[in-house]
């Protein structure tokens, strides 16, 4: 299996992506931003479709739109009373735009499947390096901002009381969320990227008690999911995304069951 370069590429890229989404996801759930990750992935879909339309790489289009819109969408969703309606409006607009761009570029069906459901098998070595670079930029800056980000995400009131610069932390987090959504979509597609950003951290939330434990569980769950998904996809020829979704869901419901038993 590893004799094939496309499988090497897929494993290499998936490992870094799972590492990133596993870690970023813990903060996404702590900050109550799962819905925002979902909206960003729909915006990313529009960006990828736009990229196809103008002839640049889908990942670049996705990064461009998610990064540009993340702070605005983040602001829209601050007030819980308006959150659902605003987010639904933005989601539908961008999903619509995505369909429009695909239609205009006249390549719709195969590209739509690729963007929506992912295509980790078949990415080039150059793509792999770009993904690793993006993942590394998220992970390195996160290790620098870790303590402030952890405080702000797990105890916003305390962070405020201690005079942390919460605005700055919030904006930084939206930017790395945008990058994480874009790279996560390369494996499972924009439609299902929240699988990687919310299910492993939810498992971690049920089973861990400290932040390092949660990060380890989340990354572990994400890694097992993508690795096993690739292997099963290789031997069955079924979509990798299906296996990843099924495995992560199994982990999630398993963790929920353990959590219920403990209570």
């Amino acid at each position, binding site marked *: 299996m590893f004799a094939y370069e496309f499988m090497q590429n897929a494993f290499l890229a998936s490992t870094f992506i799972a590492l990133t989404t596993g870690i970023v996801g813990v903060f996404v759930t702590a900050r109550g931003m799962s819905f925002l990750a979902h909206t960003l992935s729909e915006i990313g879909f529009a960006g990828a479709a736009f990229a196809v339309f103008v002839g640049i790489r889908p990942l670049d289009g996705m990064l461009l739109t998610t990064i540009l819109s993340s702070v605005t969408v983040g602001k829209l969703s601050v007030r819980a009373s308006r959150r659902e309606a605003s987010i639904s409006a933005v989601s539908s607009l961008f999903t619509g735009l995505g369909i429009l761009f695909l239609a205009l570029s006249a390549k719709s069906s195969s590209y739509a499947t690729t963007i929506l459901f992912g295509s980790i098998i078949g990415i080039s070595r150059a793509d792999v390096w770009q993904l690793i670079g993006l993942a590394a930029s998220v992970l390195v800056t996160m290790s620098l901002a*870790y*303590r402030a980000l*952890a405080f702000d995400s797990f*105890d916003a*009131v*305390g962070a405020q009381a*201690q005079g942390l610069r919460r605005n700055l932390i919030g904006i930084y987090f939206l930017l790395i969320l945008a990058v994480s959504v874009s790279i996560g979509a390369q494996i499972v597609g924009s439609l299902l990227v929240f699988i990687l950003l919310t299910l492993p951290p939810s498992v971690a939330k049920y089973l861990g*008690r*400290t*932040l390092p434990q949660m990060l380890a569980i989340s990354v572990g769950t994400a890694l097992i999911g993508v690795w096993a998904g690739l292997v099963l996809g290789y031997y069955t020829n079924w979509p990798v995304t299906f296996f990843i979704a099924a495995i992560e869901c199994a982990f999630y419901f398993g963790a929920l069951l353990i959590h219920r038993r403990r209570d």
Partner: protein
Amino acid sequence: MDTPLLTVDHLSFGFHDRPLYSDLSFTLARGSMTSLIGANGVGKTTLIRLIMGQLAPQTGTITQAADMRLGYVPQFRNIDPEYPLSLRSFIQLNQRRHWHPWHTTGEQRELDAVIAECGLTARQHQLLGKASGGEKQKAYLAQALLTRPNFLILDEATASLDINTKTELMTLVRELNRQRDLTVLFVTHDLELARAYTDQYLLLTPAGHELRATTEMDAAHMPAELRPTEEVR
């Protein structure tokens, strides 16, 4: 005599249509324990925000001692029953002397000491979301103590607690006050606690303010909302 830790001099402040204080002056001596009392809406929280520098006085000054290190325990915390971190991990969030993600042995020792000081050693690995009201308050307190403050503001820390837990928490605060020479400003509605655990009280009313020893407190002259008979929870 030592310089006071905090001096508020002829402070006035108000919002557009609602003046709160016109000429507020008081000092807090080092190691003192003061209750800040007053009816709802009289400006207790605003005064704290002024002291913390989140709001600026309209006239007058607030002078802090050069070595003042403020610790603030806010009134409301959004900790739901599903909150995932243990008490220990929650308290540790405020440990930010180093930037790197891992905590040094020195930091762990410091954390152990604060947890022990707050009487949480046996319960430190419990989930915060499942902890009792008293344990939660102690964890909030421990978290604020991690930065080694010499001035601690407790905003309605006892409001949601039963009487035994209130007493336990205030005994702890009193001990910290003595052992660490910690100056405490305790915002409360509870005259009984103010009298039992603090040396002096600062009463804010729409008509003005007074700073007196708690031994001189006369409940009958307090605003109706604060009188003990109405404080049954």
